Every structure is written in C-alpha cells, then in structure tokens.
C-alpha cells in the first residue's frame, strides 16, 4: 500500500469517528465526579471562604454518608438550569424554559429558612439537546456544591444521559420537558418531570388521528411515522403506533432520519408509495420543517402533517413556510386559570413576545417546587450557613401532593411523574399554532373536546 493510500485510510477513519460522534446519541455512562464535601485547600483570608470551609468540615463529621449542598451565610442558593440554548431548531425551546424559570425567580427572589433569607440565582447551561451535552452539564452541576437542585434537562436524550450522574450525587432534577415514557420507568432517583409523559401524549395523538370528525378527530386510518432517532422521537412513535393499531388504524410506513441530514426526498418518495393520509413526525423543528417542506416534492402535499411538543414552536412555522399551514402538533397544556393568564401577560411584558415554545409554565412550576422543597427541608447550621440535605429534598419532591401549579394540580406518583395535565392539539393557522382540541382522560376513557372558535 502506498503512503498516499495509507493517508487516505487514516483520513477515512477520522471521518468515520467524526461522523459517528456527531450522530451518535447513545447515552454512555462515564465515571461521575462526586461532589466533594471535604474542605478543599487551605482556608484563605476571606471570612466567607473560611466559613464555608469550616461548615463543610463540620458537615463531614456529622453526616458522613448523606450528601448536602451548603450555602454560607450571605451566599447565593443556585438553581441549575440545563436546556438547549443554541443549536438548529432547539434554542427557542430552551430559551422558553429559561424564561419560565427566570420569571419564577423574579417573583420569588429569595428563600427563607429559619428566619434567614438567601438570594436564589439561576445558573443556565447549554445542554444542546444531546446526550453528550446533558452529561457535560450534569457533571458540571454535580461538582458544584452551591447547586441545590436542577430544572431540566430539556430533551429526553439529555435527561437519560444525565440522570445516572445526578443519581450518584443524590441530586434532584425536575424536567419541564423530558417526555419520553420510559424515563420514569428506569428507576432513576433524581428524575422528576413537571410535564405529561409521552405514554399519554402518544395515546391522545393516536386517538385524535383515528377518531372520526364527529368525535373531534381527523378520521385518518393510514399513517406513516418518522422519528429522529432520539429516545424522545423513538418512544413517542412507538406509543402512538401501538395505540393507533389497537384502534384499528394502519401504520403503512415507519422510518427514521439522521439528525443533520437535509435531503429527505428519497425517504418521502418511499413513503409516498404507501399512500399515507398523514405523516406523523416525532422530533424537532428543523427536521420537521424539512420533511413538511419536501413532502410536496415527493407528491405528498395532500398528506396531513402532524408532530408533537418538540415542533410546536414558531420556528417550525418560520422554517417550513407555506408547507407548515395546516400542520398539527400535540403538547401538554396548562389548564386555563387566572394565574396562567397573569403569568402570560407578565411574560409578554418581560420579553416582548408571545412564548415561542410550550414549556414556559412547566419550567415555572418546576422552579417553584424546587424553591418550596428548599424552604421545607433546608436547615441552618451553627454559623448561619444554609444546609440542604439532598436526600430530604429528593424525598420532598417525590412526595409533592396537590401542588397548585400553572400547569394544573401536581401530584407526585413516586416514580418521578408530577403532572397529569391534558394534551392540547394545535394547528398552524395564519402563521401561528392555534389550539383546536383538548384530549383528557375522564373515568379511564379518552375524551376529545373541540375548541369552539
């Protein structure tokens, strides 16, 4: 083999590695960094630092096995926020979550424990909606003992990758948007979510697609499914397909795409052979927009397009242009209440725009539950430092009952589920998502209610 050929091989191997590290979304367990509660280094001259060091030292003596977050007197209680703040199509979802948490803190800037007041601050980190990103952010938070609890991660792939790391250091996370059904069935101790599981969202989607028009549905029996290879997309399509076939519908084609790919015409051409009436896509806005856009090129412009909470953003409408018109999306919705409309007008006032994505209220609730949990379980030690026993905090969140949140009344079921909100179905009309139906469970059976105009 010539040297030239050898160089090409080396290059090919590099390409392979690059391609797979970019596309691979499998969570991998990396050695986690346990937060240290031993004094680190020599106490410095500043009184605050030395107080912190002695507090930690005392803690080591007192609770060897229990892990705790410690905030010295006058220090800040930090809530970690893990969401995608950059990236193709993801950023509006993450920014919406960030704003929900910011508004919760704006309304409640301090926590009061035993007569002392501590300022709460938000540490937002970009998890890029990926397993790698979720892991990196989790490792960072787990190594920071000022962090008391976490709102997030945003995407199910990040949630799944981050959960073992948070588990190991006994943290509590409340995700406003990780909906993959199996997350609450995997025995993660740190995982909680203030959003409805896809086990429910998928069912409502299937009912909405299958039921005849006089019962509030679309009356469609031939569906093609596509997902984006993420745990979220894969899980949601599975739940939806299962229910849809059980109802008597037919999944005529099912396939998956690679995130980052841009030409789906070949795939859509294959799907077109099966003549579906509706394309169900579980994934995120950039890919959804491409599929919605390119379906016309493959002769599927008459097929309906439906997605889920991942695409229910203004970004999807902007990217897909005319082909977004009429597209459906399901999402967990907050019950109408005065508190919610007050919150929405606050949002509009603070950021000057309607929420670009559906998870602001979930993030607001998640943040507030964490603050409640801190106030209920934290204690002061002898020199006035705030000590948050992470185990107690975790138990508190796992046992929340009748919490009056913006998204409804939240009740923990013990495995991490907090929310039982309804699922709303929206449609793109006049360049915006308009809610057209609400799916809920009454006495064990699914009810679809059409929104009157």
């Amino acid at each position, binding site marked *: *083999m*010539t*040297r*030239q*050929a050898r*160089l*090409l*091989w*080396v*290059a*090919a191997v*590099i*390409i*392979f590695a*690059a*391609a797979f590290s*970019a*596309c691979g979304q499998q969570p991998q367990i990396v050695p986690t960094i346990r937060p240290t509660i031993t004094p680190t280094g020599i106490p410095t001259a500043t009184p605050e630092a030395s107080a912190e060091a002695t507090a930690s030292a005392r803690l080591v003596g007192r609770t060897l096995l229990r892990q705790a977050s410690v905030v010295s007197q006058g220090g800040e209680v930090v809530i970690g926020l893990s969401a995608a703040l*950059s*990236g*193709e*199509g993801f*950023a*509006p979802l993450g920014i919406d979550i960030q704003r929900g948490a910011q508004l919760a803190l704006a309304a409640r800037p301090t926590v009061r424990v035993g007569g002392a007041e501590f300022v709460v601050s938000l540490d937002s980190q970009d998890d890029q909606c990926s397993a790698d990103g979720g892991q990196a952010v989790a490792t960072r938070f787990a190594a920071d003992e000022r962090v008391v609890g976490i709102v997030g991660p945003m995407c199910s792939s990040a949630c799944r990758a981050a959960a073992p790391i948070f588990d190991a250091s006994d943290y509590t996370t409340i995700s406003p948007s990780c909906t993959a059904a199996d997350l609450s069935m995997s025995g993660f101790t740190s995982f909680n979510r203030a959003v409805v599981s896809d086990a429910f969202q998928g069912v409502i989607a299937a009912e909405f697609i299958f039921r005849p028009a006089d019962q509030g549905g679309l009356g469609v029996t031939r569906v093609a499914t596509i997902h984006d*290879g993420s745990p979220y997309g894969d899980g949601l399509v599975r739940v939806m397909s299962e229910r849809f076939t059980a109802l008597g519908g037919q999944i005529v084609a099912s*396939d*998956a*795409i*690679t995130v*980052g*790919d*841009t*030409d*789906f*015409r*070949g*795939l859509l*051409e*294959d799907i077109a*052979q099966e003549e579906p009436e509706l394309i169900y896509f579980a994934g995120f*806005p*950039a890919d959804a*927009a*491409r599929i919605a*856009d*390119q379906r*016309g*090129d*493959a*002769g599927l412009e008459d097929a309906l397009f439906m997605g889920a909470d991942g695409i229910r953003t203004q*970004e999807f409408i*902007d*990217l897909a*242009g*005319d082909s977004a018109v009429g597209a459906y999306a399901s999402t967990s919705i907050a019950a109408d209440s005065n508190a919610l409309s007050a919150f929405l007008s606050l949002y509009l006032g603070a950021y000057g725009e309607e929420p670009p994505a559906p998870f602001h209220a979930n993030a607001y609730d998640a943040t507030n539950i964490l603050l409640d949990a801190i106030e209920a379980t934290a204690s002061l030690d002898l020199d006035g430092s705030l000590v948050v026993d992470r185990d107690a905090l975790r138990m508190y969140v796992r046992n929340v009952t009748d919490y009056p949140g913006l998204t409804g009344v939240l009740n923990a079921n013990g495995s991490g589920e907090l929310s039982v909100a309804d699922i709303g179905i929206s449609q793109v009309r006049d360049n915006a998502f308009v809610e057209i139906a609400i799916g809920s469970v009454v006495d064990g059976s699914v009810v679809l209610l059409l929104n009157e105009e």
Partner: protein
Amino acid sequence: MTPIQTQEMRARRQPASALSRLIRNPVQLISAIILLGLFLVALRNVLPLNGAAEYQPDQFARQLIFGLAQGSIYALIALGYTLVYGILSMINFAHGEIFMAGAYMGFFAITAAQETGLLASDPVLALFITLLIGMLSSAVVAVLVERIAYRPLRNAPRLVPLITAIGASIALQQIFLRLFGASTRRYPDVGWFVLPNACPALGTQGLDDTGLCRGIDLIGGRYDVTVIGLELRILPIHFLVFALSLALMIALWLYVHRTKSGKAMRAVAEDRNTAALMGVNVDRVIVTTFILGGLLAGAGGVLYALYNQQVSPFIGFLPGIKAFTAAVLGGIGNIPGAMFGGLFLGVVETVAPSMLGLSSQLKDVIAFGLLVMVLIFRPQGIFGEVLSSKRG
C-alpha cells in the same frame, strides 16, 4: 501448503484471473460476497416476483432525479477537496464550512434582494447576484483559511495541516454561530418564470394563487408529467442545479487544461519544486487553487440553499464529509473522478436504501460502506491513477 504448490500458484498467477486474486485476498473475498448479497437483495426487490415488485421503476426514476441533484452539489464541493489535494497533497477539512459560508452569504444577498423588491421584479438578476456573492464570499473564506491555517505549515509533516484543517473547520463554524446565531434561516420562496407559451400544456398545474399562468417556474415549480410510461413529478430546480453544476465543472476542466494558469497548476501538482525552478509562482498557484475551490463550493452552497431552503452554521458538516467521500471514491486529485464520485454518491444514497428495502436512516452507513468497499478493491479510487511513491 508445500513450497511447490506455492510455486505452482505463482506460476499460474501470470494471467491472474480476477477470481484467483479474490481467493488469495480474504478481505476482498468477504467484500465481494457482501456486494453479491446486496446485489441479490436489490434484484429481489426490483423483480416482480409475486405480483408487483417492491421497488417500482417510476419510484426509481424519481429518486434518481433527487439523487442527481443532491449528487451534483456533492460534486461541486468534492472538486474543492480534489483540487487542493492535487496541489498540496493535503485534505482541506474546512471545505464543508467554506461551502456553508457561501450559502449563508447568499442568504443575506437574496433576503436583501427580496426586501428591495428586486427578487420579485427581476428574479434572474437577483439570483445571479446571490450566486455571485455566495461564490465570492466562499472564495474569500477559502483564501483566508489557506493564509492563516495552511501556509505557515506548508513544509510541516503531512499530519499537521490535517489537524489545523479540522481546527479551521470548527473555528469557522463557531464564528458563524457567534456572528449570526444558531437559528436556522429560511431562503425566501423564489419564482423564476420562463416560457409563458407553455401555459396551455401545463393546464391547471401552471396556475398560481390568483389563477394566472406565467409560465414554467424554474425554482419553485413542481409538475406532474408522464415520460415513457413513468409517472414523474418534475421539479425544474433539480435540472437547474444539475445543469449549472455541470457547466461549472466543465468550466473548471477547461480552465485547468486550456489556460496558462491551469498549466501552472498542473505543473505544481506534478512536482512543486521543479515547477518553482521553472519559474512558476507556487504561492500564487496555490491561492488560485483555493479560489477555484471556494468559487465552486460557494456556488454549491447557494444551489443547495435554493433547493433545500434552509441555512444554519451546521449545514456544512455532513455535506462536507459526503463530498470528501465522493472525492476519495472518484480518486482524490482527479477532477472527473470528483464529478463522478459526487453524482454516484448522491444517487446511491437516495436510491440504495429503498432498493435494498432498508431504513433510510442507514443511508450514511451505505455511503461510507461504499467508500470502504471501493478502497478495498481500488485504494486509489475509481478514476485515480497509482502515483509513484515519491508523490504519494
């Protein structure tokens, strides 16, 4: 095996048949078996065994057209890899980002044209300006990358510029991310109407929202036609992309083979030191090479964005890798090879998953698997020539 047998085999090798060569090389043998298996699967799907075939001819024809359009964009990018490799024997991994830069700058040009109304009043001029700006900005980025990342390392060991190339690629992506934000942007819908007297033939398909027919829409139009019994959906943009790419490739070939500057390029590719002794300005030739590669990548970027309508700082990554694959497939350093490799890869990627009845998620596996197969049988690529070890 006794020595005598080996000798016998060696004696028989003189008119070495392809089969005996296969048997002696286990890797090639395994690859050949895999290829044969894939071929049989494809055959089963294509033949109408029980009733209708899994894979219909008109489905093939439609996917072939998609594949050719996608492939000609790969080919435009692949030419940049091949040119630079031919001159410098290095792989410019930042080329995918140079492509992205063209698409992005083209976006600003075409949005400006839309806002000033030029796009509506004179779409041809607006598209021409967009293409020009995309090409020029890619060329500028390419020259900057050469200046900053490669020239200081001209005489460093081969692997060093490979690393800076990857660095340059990440740096460019991040610069665009910081400058213009992470959100994806949508190219405006463009209508370029030609042949107004084709209206009667188009029937209702030619009508726009107001019920008016202005002719065939070359950019945004879709037309259902029947060609030799195949029901096709024709998008004129596919042919436009293909034709324009082909024209650019021919122009490049003419430049390299018919001009003095092209001759200098070929001389430097042959032997840089001797060319320098003969009075060729090597630095200038190298810059010219990067400019040419950049121009083609920029054109590819604008065409790609017109066709897929979305641009973001991340769009360069995957097409860049695919184009590199195409360049290696065709024989890196070889201009017709890059053209062929790009078209071939685009078609295989679109057609193969459905022909083999696989998930289209596997199309990258098929594309890269194909690269491995080709390298097993022809380490120098399909069109590549075996170079002397001095250059290799």
